[in-house]
């Protein structure tokens, strides 16, 4: 029993954090909103080069042969940086599913020559600019390679949504488990949520220490202090569940325990990021409500990721079943 990361895992996380800080600052996110593909130019290739796309691919297939414990804080950093790429979809779900199915599309996925997204629930999904879609079809997964879809506009410009209307070409992904794919998607989204929450909290702490009203820093008012202390507490009691769920996805053979652990993590992470967004906006006041100020990049991530791959109620229901109430 040792609930901590290795120095190697810390270093990998720090390296990715630096990459995002360098290649995906807020201006790059804004640019991705305006370009056709919704992508940050060059970022995908850089992630491939660093091995991030291949974390969950076996070494035999040219991957890093790591697991979700290695990946979880990378996705947290993606949330922290507000990365608009479909990282959870591609890295956390599609790559291991292709590996488990032994599908030839794996190679292009880990070299960054392709981008693969995910449609598990059949409603809207993050779809634009992807080369293929890992799609749930009953109790199996398939890799959809040609499809028709309508665009839909998310409040979060980092999510280019699609509504699937027709599948015209697809391969079965035998050996890939749709329930595991869902747990991976929920875990990855939970990790992004806590990264987003951390960024919102840091940005707000910084702002309220500087901003003065009535002759004092806004952050010296007890109401503001308590708002932000509540965010910090919510975050620090969500993060361990997220890491614990990562361990479970990587190591638990029992899908029942895995699902419970993932759902506990997503429920708490969704709550934490919701609260973080609410208090970040309230403590910023009007400036946080503007398009020009960067806080909005994370607010929108918060609103959409809190609900993506199961909201609080969905995951509590799953835990309820798991614990027999």
């Amino acid at each position, binding site marked *: 029993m040792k609930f901590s990361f290795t120095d190697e895992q810390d270093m990998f996380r720090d390296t990715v954090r630096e990459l995002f800080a360098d290649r995906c600052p807020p201006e790059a996110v804004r640019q991705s909103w305006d370009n056709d593909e919704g992508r940050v130019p060059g970022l995908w290739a850089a992630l491939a080069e660093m091995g991030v796309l291949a974390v969950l691919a076996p070494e035999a297939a040219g991957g890093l042969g790591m697991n979700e414990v290695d990946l979880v804080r990378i996705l947290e950093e993606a949330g922290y940086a507000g990365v608009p790429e479909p990282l959870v979809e591609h890295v956390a779900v599609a790559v291991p599913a292709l590996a488990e199915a032994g599908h030839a599309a794996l190679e292009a996925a880990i070299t960054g020559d392709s981008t693969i997204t995910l449609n598990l*629930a059949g*409603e*809207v999904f993050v779809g634009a600019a992807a080369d293929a879609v890992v799609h749930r079809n009953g109790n199996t997964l398939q890799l959809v390679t040609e499809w028709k879809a309508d665009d*839909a*506009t*998310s*409040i*979060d410009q980092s*999510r280019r*949504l699609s509504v699937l209307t027709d599948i015209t070409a697809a391969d079965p992904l035998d050996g890939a488990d749709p329930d595991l794919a869902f747990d991976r998607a929920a875990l990855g989204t939970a990790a992004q949520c806590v990264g987003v929450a951390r960024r919102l909290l840091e940005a707000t702490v910084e702002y309220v220490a500087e901003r*003065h*009203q*009535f002759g004092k820093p806004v952050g010296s*008012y007890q*109401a*503001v202090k308590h708002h932000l202390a509540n965010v910090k507490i919510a975050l620090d009691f969500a993060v361990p569940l997220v890491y614990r769920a990562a361990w479970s996805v990587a190591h638990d053979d029992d899908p029942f325990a895995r699902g419970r652990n993932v759902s506990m993590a997503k429920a708490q992470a969704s709550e934490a990021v919701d609260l973080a967004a609410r208090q970040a*906006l*309230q403590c910023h*006041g*009007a400036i946080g*409500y*503007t*398009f*020009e100020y960067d806080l*909005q990049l994370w*607010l*929108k991530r918060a*609103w*959409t990721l809190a*609900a993506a791959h199961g*909201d609080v*109620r969905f995951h509590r229901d799953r835990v309820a079943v798991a614990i027999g109430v």
Partner: protein
Amino acid sequence: MNLDLAPHYVAFRNECRQWLTDNHPGRIASMDTAVGFEEHRAWEKFLFDAGWSVPAWPSVYGGRDCDLIEWLIYEEEYWLSGVPGRVSANGVSLLAPTIFNFATQEQQDFFLPRMASGEHIWAQGWSEPEAGSDLAGIKTKAILDGDDFILNGQKTWCSRGAFADWIFCIVRTDPEAERHQGLTYLLVPAETPGMERRPIGRLDGEPGFAELFFDDARVSAKHVLGGVGQGWAVAMAAAGSERGLSLRSPGRFMAAAERLRALAADVTDLDPRLRDEVVDAWIKAQAYRWNTYQMAADLMEGAEIGPEASEGKVFWSELDLELHATALRLMGPMGEVADAGNDWLDGYVFALSGPIYAGTNEIQRNIVAERVLGLPRR
């Protein structure tokens, strides 16, 4: 106590409802776009011509002398009917009470009819980068030069400011005076030379506000409201109305609660937790309504709205957020989709500003604690 509507009120309600049904213009564009702003202005004119733009005003200015109960009924019917929102709200709700209380006869005769008809759409110019909820921090200078004031400084968060015709500002006419002293309430034409306005996008990118930059902008001193140096007292009287009855009538939230109820009633296998949230919001809309009728009874017996208006501001702004957040949860994965027709998402973005503007809810709670409950200031 008599909660039955007298026959003349019932008749009035029926008249409102019938007119709104007969004259519903359908969906028009958002008032935060240039096109939508003019469509909304046309709707104001249409209301005005029919005598429905400012029913609580004296008939001489285009109103129909409604009493408070009639006004509340009108508001209930207005919002329930689903006709467009009021681009005139800043003027009618925030500025007009101040004009009625503080303006000269000449000012009243000039501004009120034009406000009622939509010829003048007003924006509020109170906040500055360093003066949000703390108005005493206002720095924009207005120095008298002959019959005019020369303005220098910056205003921000002017709702409707991108397209408005006039802005009601608070400026510092005595730069030596500190804090609440030396402020003046000044009405500024949007076309004033030396004043630039820059739209600010709100969260969804629509220009919900503007910044104003004054660079030796010249404004006639005849547009002072309530006397030079009286700005703080005049503004505080308006802040009372901003937080009180006139800013957010119950009809608005009752209508939203009713739409939420209808949305939920259409969901098959409604999540009982969401049902509970819907009912809670619906009850709160009713609570806001009856609290308002209670306040109206007091007002009609001669009472004034004091600091308890801050209670209402907290209550309606948090109710509004709850109503819209619940609707988005009900919509599930489609809640985030911003394509045409998702009024709940637009409404949510708007509702998020409620706990911030017109004095943050933190400040409102301070007011409730200190001025209603009498807790020590420090």
